[in-house]
């Protein structure tokens, strides 16, 4: 009897582990079928494109606050928390660096870790600026019924030690955008919502790549 319980326990925990290892893009076929049947109209998509701009600006504002060491810790912590809410669960930041030999090295970090690191950079002062313009590609429907797009933004970063600039870079960021159906627990209804997904960040170089 004890052996049976043990075996069942092992199988159960194994299946739970396997479920937990599912990739971000994998969805159950039932869920995909339901969302696939619901389509956004072209007018809806235009509205979402506008909302995407606002969402991206919101994220940029949180980054500026988070990196600004003159802001009170509470405000920066709040910015970190609110920025995370914009993202799809499991979103990652991929940062690529061009090494002196010309090769590219990439590092992936969960968004939580990236934001936490940004908050505690070893500079006395940090200035982060974003360009007012962003490019957002059209939304395309995926086989899971969600709509996908990508926004391109440019970030200028300057790190100071006292009054001296000790690090500066301009990075181009590609932000994945996902429109998904979520359940509004307050109104007890389902509605489309915009999330930010993975971000690819690459330093722009003045030399020929």
């Amino acid at each position: 009897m004890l052996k049976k319980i043990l075996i069942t326990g092992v199988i159960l925990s194994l299946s739970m582990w396997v479920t937990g290892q599912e990739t971000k893009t994998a969805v159950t076929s039932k869920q995909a079928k339901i969302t696939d049947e619901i389509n956004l109209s072209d007018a809806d998509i235009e509205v979402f494109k506008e909302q995407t701009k606002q969402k991206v600006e919101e994220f940029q504002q949180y980054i500026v606050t988070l990196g600004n060491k003159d802001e009170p810790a509470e405000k920066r912590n709040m910015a970190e928390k609110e920025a995370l809410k914009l993202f799809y669960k499991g979103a990652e930041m991929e940062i690529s660096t061009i090494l002196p030999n010309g090769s590219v090295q990439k590092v992936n970090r969960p968004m939580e870790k990236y934001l936490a690191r940004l908050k505690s950079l070893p500079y006395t002062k940090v200035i982060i600026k974003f360009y007012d313009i962003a490019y957002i590609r059209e939304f395309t429907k995926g086989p899971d019924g969600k709509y996908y797009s990508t926004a391109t933004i440019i970030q200028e970063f300057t790190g100071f030690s006292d009054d001296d600039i000790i690090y500066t870079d301009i990075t181009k960021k590609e932000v994945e955008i996902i429109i998904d159906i979520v359940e509004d627990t307050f109104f007890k209804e389902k509605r489309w919502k915009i999330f930010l997904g993975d971000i690819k960040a690459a330093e722009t170089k003045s030399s020929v790549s």
Partner: protein
Amino acid sequence: MSYRFFKRKLHRGSILVCVVFFTGSSLFSQVLTNQQKEREDIFVARIKQFNEFADRFNLKTDFNGNTADSVFKARMPRERMIPLLFDLKDPRIQIPGKEYSEAYIRIKEEFVEEVTKKNILLYKYSPGIISEARVRVIYKGEPQQIRLFLVQEIVGNNSVKWVLRSAKGDILNIFKTDTSMVRFIPPSSNETDFINLKRALEDTDYLQYYASQDYEPDFLTLFFYYIKAGIIKYEYVEEVVYHIIDIPGWYLRVKEFNRNELNSGWLITDVMKNELDLAAFIRNL
């Protein structure tokens, strides 16, 4: 020196300092603003995503990503827009230059002329757009590169996904070539229940010679097996290059140029004539 003179002198000096300071300050901020403006102009001109490349190629959008109106189309017709989608630093178009090629310039012009005259558009979800992802993997503790070829598939209710179509890389080439020997399983082997099979399968580097004439190794399956068995560990995509055979009779190669110039982003690095279909084309890549 009277007090009044001193005061006047001091006043003049203050004005001069103020004038110099404010002029200098405004000049400095002007320089900063100009630099910012220049960088923003580069960002606008830059072909930021492959999607934007397709939209500019089709003259669907202007430089700001808005739908191209008649005024923009009149000012920037396709015969002016498409040449701007090429890498303008290509050594084959630099005069004077060792690599300067009139033949390449002619083929470029022929391509632009054909595409614009016949109004050929690029279908961005075409299976004729092959994305080559050069991925870094770790094999026996050393970094190695594998080229994965992805194409788009339209599924169900007009939804789209990228799918893996093929893989290539030195570590996937498990066979060696040897034409000096004839390798085969003898014609009467069936009568001995293929005792010779043992000998053939011990010839591990040259197993392909024991397969049928139309045998083609499936490197994608091999790649999947390597990943599943833990023989290689996937790290990340190092670079992406697009191969476009969607335009009948033509091949375009598009890659990203990450430079602070107006001619930057996703640009055409090569154009040539092509008659191969998708399968044959990928085999030849």
